[in-house]
């Protein structure tokens, strides 16, 4: 067993009366693409700030690459690449000026590590003199990632890199991360998009300062342990209200084009369809569904 890339023990952080992180423990392996999945306010950014040595925890400890985030922060800073939640480059400086600047902070030359950023920086090279502030969302992201990688860090901390970015750019971004994984860089990435969980090796689901579950996306989805069905009808809102009234339905919620129905042990889809027909929803169809991370989150968040 190699030493874990990130080891977190009983980490707690409070802001006044608000507990942002509540006794969190977590371990991330070297070379892993690890996802922190959770909505705004889950505590993801606080965790990042502690790991990036920007903030000390109130209690508990965290070590990255075997270095303590508080005691060994100087040594650690050389080896991490951090991309904060907001676009954090100088908008009034050009693409190349930004890259040069961040390279010089770490005392490296762009050429030394160009191979690492080449796959995505290539597209930016076409306009080296464009101001960073004038780039599109997707391009800004590529530049920010390039700047975070220019010193060839051993671990990359990406805090919600895909927030506010459209679906196409989001998907491209995950493709870029996949190429980095081959370079044996450990990646800790957070997102509020549950559907992005499947792009990670392992994930931790976070909510309100707690880690709800840790595991591979497939294992987590498989462990949902619920009797899950799809339900469709032309009148989805009517269907939703009707299903919620059925006693064998423990939960029912919208899920893309269908409704997801969580049935109790006694739930029978054919029987439910009949009951709905009696309620006047003649076209209701109910069939088994495969749950995913979002279903799990709804289940876990609902239980709190």
């Amino acid at each position: 067993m190699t030493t874990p890339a990130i080891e977190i023990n009983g980490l707690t952080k409070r802001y006044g009366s608000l507990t942002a992180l509540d006794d969190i423990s977590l371990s991330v392996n070297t070379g892993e693409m690890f996802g922190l999945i959770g909505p705004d306010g889950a505590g993801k950014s606080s965790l990042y700030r502690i790991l990036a040595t920007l903030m000390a925890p109130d209690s508990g400890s965290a070590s990255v690459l075997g270095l303590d985030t508080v005691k060994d922060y100087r040594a650690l800073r050389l080896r991490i690449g951090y991309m904060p939640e907001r676009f954090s480059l100088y908008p009034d400086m050009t693409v190349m000026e930004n890259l040069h600047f961040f390279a010089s902070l770490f005392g490296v030359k762009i050429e030394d590590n160009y191979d690492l950023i080449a796959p995505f920086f290539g597209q930016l090279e076409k306009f080296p003199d464009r101001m960073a502030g004038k780039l599109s969302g997707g391009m800004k992201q590529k530049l920010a990632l390039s700047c975070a990688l220019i010193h060839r860090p051993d671990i990359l901390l990406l805090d919600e890199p895909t927030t506010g970015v459209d679906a196409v750019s989001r998907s491209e971004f995950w493709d870029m991360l996949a190429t980095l994984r081959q370079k044996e860089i450990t990646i800790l990435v957070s997102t509020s998009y549950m559907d992005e969980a499947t792009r990670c090796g392992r994930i931790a689901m976070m909510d309100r300062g707690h880690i709800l579950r840790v595991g591979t996306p497939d294992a987590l989805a498989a462990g949902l342990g619920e009797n899950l069905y799809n339900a469709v009808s032309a009148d989805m809102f009517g269907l939703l209200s009707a299903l919620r009234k059925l006693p064998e339905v423990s939960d029912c919620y919208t899920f893309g084009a269908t409704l997801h129905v969580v049935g109790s042990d006694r739930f029978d889809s054919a029987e439910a369809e009949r009951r709905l027909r009696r309620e006047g929803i003649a076209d209701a169809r109910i069939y088994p569904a495969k749950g995913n991370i979002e279903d799990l989150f709804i289940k876990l968040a609902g239980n709190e």
Partner: protein
Amino acid sequence: MNEDNYAISVRGLTKRFGSFTAVDHISFDVGRGEIFGFLGANGAGKTTAMRMLCGLSRPTAGAGTVAGCDINTQSEMIKRRIGYMSQKFSLYEGLTVTENLRLFATIYGMSDRAIREQSNRVFSLLDMDNMRDTLVKDIPVGWKQKLAFASATIHRPDIVFLDEPTGGVDPVTRRKFWELIYRVSSEGMTVFVTTHYLDEAEYCNRVSIMVDGRITALDTPEALKSEYHADTMDQVFRIVARQATRGE
């Protein structure tokens, strides 16, 4: 065609900034009570188009009506008949829930009695009765979202524009919010919504996708999925948005 049947009806709507055409001759109709999804990649022109529809920006060319008012000449009237909610929620954190609601109601010129009645209605609708006197900064994000929605609709507008209302919000809250949208829509309010969550596009009655300033796809989610041989709106969006050529 009778324009009164439509909450929004625009033809050849165009906005240019210098030599850059942000919105390029878009034409579409939104029926009363419809939930209309307005999708597009970043920089496709969604925000600019939405600003024109809300009467915040004058079109360079084109004509149309929003809530029965002409977008070229009656922008002030439009503002009175619509509601707008942005991703930032635009609430006053230092005021209580009630104070926020009253403030927005007063801005729209509602009488004290109407405000009282509507507040009561809204609070019971949103299940927020016990939070009336809590400061907005102390309530959870899901409640802020609901309150922002209530503030945008307290004056019972014909149309409510929602600009990425669910960004970063957890899956449970997101779903509750959409149920709220369904409810106001069933009461006859038109909902015009943008989102980055493509599963939410499935909840819309009709969806348009903007690419490079134009609307290149507009239909019900089912029709779009079969047209593009896709299983989900997410796939549809990717196929359509990849046609973009605009140098971003």
